[in-house]
């Protein structure tokens, strides 16, 4: 056993001798307050893990979306321009019809 182990053992054994004078029964009104709070919460929380997954899923989806745009920005811009051109053509077609 090295010097530190001896020192630590001595300190913890001394700390264990300290008595905790604080009571261990629930303070007056504590259980009523807790139960009143709990009554306003859903008892069956099987959905909580799914909510956590959904939130993480949303974050992952957002990161994937951003990454996809960043890696393929040129295609994205071209595609947007093509859509705009098509939209302009559609308006032209509508005007022709009238």
């Amino acid at each position, binding site marked *: 056993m090295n010097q*530190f*182990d*001896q*020192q*630590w*053992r*001595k*300190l*913890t054994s*001394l*700390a*264990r*001798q*300290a*008595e*905790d004078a*604080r009571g*261990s*029964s*629930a*303070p007056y009104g*504590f*259980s*009523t*307050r*807790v*139960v009143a*709070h*709990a*009554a306003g*919460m*859903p*008892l*069956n*929380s*099987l959905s*909580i893990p799914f909510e956590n997954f959904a939130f993480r899923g949303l974050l992952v989806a957002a990161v994937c979306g951003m990454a996809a745009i960043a890696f393929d920005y040129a295609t994205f811009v071209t595609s947007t321009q093509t859509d705009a051109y098509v939209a302009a053509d559609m308006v032209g077609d509508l005007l022709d019809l009238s």
Partner: protein
Amino acid sequence: MGDDPFDLVACLERVRQRDQKASRQLVEHLYPLVIRIVRSHLPRRVAEEDLAQDIFLKMFTRIAQYQGNVPFPHWVSRIAVTTCIDQLRAQKRRPEFRWADLSENEAEVLDNVLTDSRDTTPGDALAARELVHKLLDQLKPDDRLVIQLLDLEQRTIAEISAQTGWNQTLVKVRAFRARRKLQKLFQELQTKEKS
């Protein structure tokens, strides 16, 4: 709780049916267990009653998930331990430990332990407990928990594993890491004291 033995199974059944009286009885029955865990792992600046309330609220929220695979008090103590660890993690920064932060009694106890100059008296116990908690504040929450249970509450590795849900190897690794950090702290304190 009186002289009547507490029927936990029947009480749980009534709690599941949203019986408020049974819920209050359950809280009062489990309070000593929960408050003991809270006091052992209480983060700085957090009121023990607030933390105990959070633990009981989690217990009620998750009670439908309790399958009875482990005794109910064990299940609740695991909720209590994880809630305390979450609170400790939320604190993030740990203040640097300095000799000047110690009270006169704590400094004296530490000096006696470090120099092994004389046997300590039972009157030093309270100061030693405060000192140990200040030292444990310097550790990561998970490591702190392991040392608290191992060295102060004298639990076995198997018991810690059951209470925390960590495997025994992980508990041993955390204990080793925590002791190494504590050893470093002791060395720093000795150096500072000499200078």
